[in-house]
């Protein structure tokens, strides 16, 4: 029982309970606002009946040719609303938009290699580890680049795992 709607500026003042969490990064304002302005379809908030922000997803679509893809920049749910598949709902929404509206080939995301709960969740949602990015997080922790192929990628080429890990310099996008 959730209203999923576009994220708006005022939500930034109300998402404290979601963001006060050690695995959730709080970015600067222009970062959020850029996403809101450029990829409004990829930035959604889930709101409870009591009008609390339960969680949100933010992402974008980018790339060329067969690497045209949706990207999940952040997905986070307040602890009170966890364990009821809200993240899954939000992820499905972003996948649907990438697939149907933008005809992207895949959706990808980065996750800390140590964040096992998240990795397990993404795996359940059909994501596979495409490659490891060495010292992606502040030059310390490795990141995993996880992907899920969409309907455009009929042969599922985009998710064939890379054999060797890469360094952040080799990333195509930021």
């Amino acid at each position, binding site marked *: *029982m*959730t*209203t*999923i*709607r576009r994220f*708006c*500026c*005022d939500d*930034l*003042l*109300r998402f*404290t*309970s979601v*963001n*006060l*969490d*050690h*695995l959730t990064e*709080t*970015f*600067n*304002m*222009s970062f*959020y606002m850029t996403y809101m302005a450029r990829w*409004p*379809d990829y930035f959604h908030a889930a*709101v*409870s*009946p*009591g*009008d*609390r922000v*339960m969680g949100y997803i933010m992402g974008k679509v980018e790339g060329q040719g067969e690497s045209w893809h949706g990207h999940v920049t952040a997905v986070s749910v307040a*602890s*009170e*609303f*966890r*364990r*009821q*598949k809200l993240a899954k709902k939000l992820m499905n929404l972003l996948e*649907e*938009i990438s697939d*149907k*509206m933008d005809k992207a080939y895949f959706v990808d995301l980065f996750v800390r290699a*140590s*964040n*096992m*709960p998240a990795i397990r969740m993404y795996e359940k949602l059909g994501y596979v580890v495409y490659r490891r990015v060495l010292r992606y997080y*502040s030059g310390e922790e490795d990141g995993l680049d996880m992907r899920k192929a969409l309907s455009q990628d009929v042969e599922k080429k985009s998710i064939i795992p890379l054999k060797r890990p890469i360094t952040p310099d080799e990333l*195509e*996008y*930021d």
Partner: protein
Amino acid sequence: MASKFGLAGGIPERRVRPIWDAVDSRQYKAALKLCTALLAKHPTSPYVLALKGLILERMGKPDEALSVCLNAKELLYSDNIFHFDDLTLSTLQIVFQRLERLDLATSCYEYACTKYPNNLELMMGLFNCYVREYSYVRQQQTAIKMYKTVGEESGGEKLLPLAEALLKKHINSHSLHEPEALALYVSILEQQSKYGAALEVLSGDLGSLMGREEDKLRLQGRLLAQECNYTAASEIFQKILESCPDDWESFLHYLGCLLEHGMNLPKSRISETTLPLCVDAALALKTSLSEELVESRLASALSFVQTLQGNDTSDCVRGPHLANIEIERQRRLNGNPTDRKFIEALVNYFHRFGHLSCAASDVERYLHMLSSDEITELLDTISRSFDASSLSVKVLGFTITTYKVQELLGIFFSKSTTELQSIAKGMVDTFYKNLPLSRDLDPQESMHGEELLCMASSILVQLFWRTRNLGYLIEAIMVLEFGLTVRKYVTLEVKNILLESASHHILPQMLSSPLLQQTADLVIEFVQFKERLQHSMQYLSVRSDSIILSLKQKAESLEEMESILENVNYGVRLVELSKEDNMKHLTFNEDRQARPWWTPTASVNFLSEPFDEASTSACFRAKACEHKSTENNDPKIKETQRKSLLPRLVYLSMHGCASSLRETELNGSGLDTDAAEMKPLLEKYARSIGYSVDDALSVILGMSSGKKSIKDFAPDIVSWMSFAVFINAWNLWSNESVIPKADQSSPSSWQIVDSLVKICIEEQLIDANRILTSPGNNIPVLVQMITEPISWHLVVIQSCMRSMAPQGKKKKKGGPSERPNIPRLQAIQRSVQCMIDTLRSVQSWLSDQMRPEEQALDILLSYLQGASEDGPGHISCILEENSARHNPELGERVAQSLETWSSAGVVRRIVGAERELLVELKKICDSKLKLLGSLLVSLSSALH
């Protein structure tokens, strides 16, 4: 951000990137070093200069930043520049904006646009400059220019018909290809109430641009409802619910349309902080339908919702079940106030979803509608519905929900001390008993049942306020620490926007702590964070705080204080900001939902009120609700206003004293302007405490002579002391005496300050218990008294002395009798002596408070070893026992974490923190005493 790193202003990306990385991770020193190195290679690159400016600004060097950027701007304007890209300009723009020089940024873009007339990127930059400056006409002109250049659509906010016409023209020639463009077009029509036209657009070819069918339907439903076509609208919303049964907003719209309520449209979202719905907002919505019709419509809604319920078997779709409760609520409103179906719907909801941690908050607004009998019934039914003795995540969830419901309803508030204690104990027990459920969880996840510890510690806090027994408070801390021992955690970062919405939890306390340096770092970061929040109350308040803090830190050096004041143009800007007009537009952005229920605001604490056994939870709830809905921000505004006057008052006091004394020597009277400015400021200052200047004067006279009790003015006592200090300063150079003199023996303004400071501080020292054992002690007030009024007074003294000091050797020849300043010097000498005595008494009190760590530890632990059945100590016992017991079911990780637990360790940390505070305060006193000592020496040499 990849595009940002092309060939930037002719500089290869790999050179620039490390600089941006350093900036992004706030390693400004490193960034500056890299940038300087790059600048050596490209000394005339405007881009690298702009980067340097950006770094300098972030480092808090606005002047240097400005000059570097002006240099960059000059280079851009010179003809031999090869690269003229948006990156350089946008970097410059960032710096200029942060320096509050939007005009410079705009002129750069204007220049660029004339030089390269058809560059869309530059035009967009220029457009944005005009947006930032609120130049609507220029925005429009630029937008039209852009439109002509590329033929793309653009927005013209206020000129809806023009926008509509432009879009129509565009559609006729090029049609629309972007969903956003369609949304914009529909919104332009909607804002002009052209609902029919908007609906037509949506159902035409263009409608297919909407990527998601539900989005299109929602929009259609909203337009239809606004058109008052309720039947069609409710059908549309019904369709949405069939595909998204969990969409709560659509359900409310569906019901609203059925009942022809107009519409509770979520049009513009609530701009300020929203508070939980206490007063039922929907009550205000009157339907024009007859009772029978409402009944039959509700019946049809119910059967629809029941179908939706039947379609879903998972536990994830709660919407239709909550909808059931809402429908029954509407029935109650429609003339069936005692209908049993409402509570039945609630009970059903809990049966099905009671194990989820959001179950209680889901139905919060409905719970408040129950009578006390119904509440009892509900709680009974829920607790009978599960077997509390079995161990499962689901059962644990149910247990937590029953506690949460009671907490939400304020039931704990009416319980006796003994009951509360056993409830808290039960919560902690349950947490430990259920820990084996978390054995396979990742240490980064929250453990099952953590909420129990939060609730238990809330209850312990409540017990503390009721009994004032420190033991409960120590246990509250222990319970929370225990939870953190089990779970792996890192310190949470409050940054960026969270500074605005979440720092109200800690900032006020930090500002009155003696740890001045840590606080300053936080505040500086806060000040830098300002985009878009220009009217924030927090922001204004912190702007003053940051200046006041730096003044406090440098209070021992007149020169440094002068330079701080000079940098903030002598406090003038803040005074302007605090004008009534500006104050009216302030926004309050704190996320108050995050506060515990017993402090709806920073200044309110329901728990500190005396416990009245007769009061029921319902009457408490009513009180809390009323308080929330009529919450008054007035005191906060007053305080902010007062703070923004302070730097200017300090400056005028310094400056006025200094020049007045010189002027008298020269026998001039050029001080009228300063005096004229001081007066209205003092009036405003007095008004912010709630008095006229005359009344305020008689208050400080009364307090300093002992005729008025300090306690009566306690909440604002620090402001009163500062007021006296400023009055004294003003009196020094005002032509007429500021203080009404009854006779010759009336005290001088110096004496008023002296005795007020002495009395106020003595009062704190007498009043203070052992601070270790009295939480919420008077240390913060004491710190404020010493670092604010006393500091300001010392500034006045120093300025006076500096201006009276003989200039050159010539003057020394004149005998003491010829100098007119002797009485004044004597007054100052007395004042200095008084400050010394007062601060020494603070110091001896502080030394008295400090005791060996082991001794302090024993004192605190003794609170937990009460022999009585009733007092605190039981919970810490449980924690200690549980952590010592080797329970194999806990799994290796949890068991290992528990081994590190020690109650005494927690208490030791509390003792350490207290001690650190005392040491810091002592240091502050030391440095003030040193200054006073040297003042005394020069005074006695001047007087002899």
